[in-house]
């Protein structure tokens, strides 16, 4: 392992790697990435691959749209087929309040150039063969949203970054961050130390733990989120379907599997990735309520990962007051994969050019003490 670097990134998930990828392509390759497991060990190897632009805040809409543009060319840029399929996202609402939210969001999304439109339950049934829309009030559909396969994204970013000089150390854990006189001087790992003046905390569900290595408290908390896949089926399901009532979502992967999860109001913050029968049964019931004809389809596998949650559902980005050189890139909840390309690019520009970046300022850690929160309301799963 190198013993010094311009920048150390703790966390080899999609956020850390997207940052490394963009920085390296802009000319800063003197980066060491530290990952405690194998690549794909964290949430970036455990997620559903959903990429949607249907959001309720302008920031998220713009970031997601920019990410979609990057994902569309990422296979060519990295030489890895990421299996990005733009089959759309279909949101279902079941009461007047949720329907009003969809209406408001669609207006905002249209004003920013997205092709989202409202659909009646009957129109939704034409889109998804066999969809049971009883109790559904109103739907929203965007044909440009989609799903991808997360693993090759991670491999692709890692391979290009490595070829441009980034050193990625797997099975290597950051155990201490040495801060002297309010400045970062080095990162200590279980495989040696790296002298550096800048450290990025891209540790996902472990972000609060890693921040504590530098004596910093983050409001982020990890929550287990479970997910499952079925046996592969012939392609029949175009869009990702999301039910706002209970946060159920499912899509068909390019391998043919039905892949999905749902919210669990009883889940409390923990570092636990065990699988539960509770999830398996609730998810199966919810899936069959929406697509009754899947009753005989076999479930193959279930697993879990972390949502790194913040109090307002927005990420934590940028500088850390009191610790010069400590940069946050975490708090992406259940939607980090779809924002990672754009956020990585913006953070790379911010770090290299040292210009003011409104987005990074808006999502700084200070907002939690100053009370200026901008809440994202369209969070699912």
């Amino acid at each position, binding site marked *: 392992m190198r013993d010094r670097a311009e920048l150390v990134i703790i966390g080899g998930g999609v956020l850390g790697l997207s940052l490394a990828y963009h920085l390296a392509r802009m000319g800063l390759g003197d980066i060491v990435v530290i990952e405690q*497991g*194998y*690549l*794909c*060990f964290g949430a970036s*190897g455990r997620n559903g691959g959903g990429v949607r632009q249907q959001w309720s805040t302008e920031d998220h809409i713009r970031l997601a749209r920019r990410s979609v543009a990057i994902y569309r060319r990422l296979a060519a840029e990295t030489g890895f087929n990421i299996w990005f399929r733009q089959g759309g996202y279909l949101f279902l609402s079941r009461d007047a309040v949720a329907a009003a939210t969809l209406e408001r969001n669609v207006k905002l999304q249209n004003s920013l150039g997205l092709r989202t439109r409202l659909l009646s339950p009957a129109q939704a049934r034409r889109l998804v063969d066999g969809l049971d829309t009883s109790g559904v009030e109103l739907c929203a559909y965007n044909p440009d949203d989609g799903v991808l396969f997360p*693993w090759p994204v991670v*491999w692709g970013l890692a391979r290009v970054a490595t070829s441009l000089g980034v050193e990625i150390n*797997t*099975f290597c854990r950051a155990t201490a961050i040495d801060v002297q006189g309010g400045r970062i001087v080095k990162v200590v790992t279980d495989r040696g130390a790296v002298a550096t003046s800048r450290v990025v905390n891209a540790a996902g569900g472990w972000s609060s733990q890693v921040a504590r290595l530098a004596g910093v408290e983050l409001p982020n908390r990890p929550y287990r989120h479970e997910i499952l896949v*079925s*046996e592969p089926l012939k392609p029949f399901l175009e869009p990702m379907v999301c039910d706002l009532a209970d946060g159920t979502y499912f899509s068909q992967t390019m391998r043919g599997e039905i892949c999905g999860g749902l919210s669990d109001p009883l889940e409390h913050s923990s570092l636990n990735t065990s*699988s539960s*029968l509770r999830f*398996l*049964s*609730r*998810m*199966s*019931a919810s*899936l*069959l309520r929406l697509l009754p004809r*899947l*009753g*005989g*389809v*076999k*479930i*193959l*596998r*279930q*697993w879990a990962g972390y949502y790194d949650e913040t109090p307002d559902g927005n990420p934590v980005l940028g500088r850390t007051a009191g610790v010069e050189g400590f940069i946050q890139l975490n708090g992406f909840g259940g939607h980090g994969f779809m924002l990672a390309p754009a956020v990585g690019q913006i953070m790379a520009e911010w770090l290299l050019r040292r210009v003011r970046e409104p987005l990074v300022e808006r999502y700084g850690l200070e907002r939690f003490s100053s009370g200026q929160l901008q809440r994202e309301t369209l969070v699912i799963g």
Partner: protein
Amino acid sequence: MGKVIVCRCEDVTLEDLRQAFAAGHRDLESLKRFTGLSTGFCQGKCCAAHAGRFLAELRGGDDMVCDPTRTRPLLHPTPAACFAAIASGEAPDQEDA
């Protein structure tokens, strides 16, 4: 020698594993994710042990012990209806499923 298939569900060959190893994937979890090995219908029951042995050979020397991949439910692919019935409190009906 012709094509040797290690993972029949996902069509992963010995050569695929060799290439993944050469690309730096030296543990079974990474090999699984890089090649798709063990992610099909049998969930690794048919291939994981063979792949583990092959990986140990490739590693050679003192590095021959390799951990299996983390075991994940389900033990056997099972119809969604069986589990939906648990959530609704109804007895699972094997015949329907």
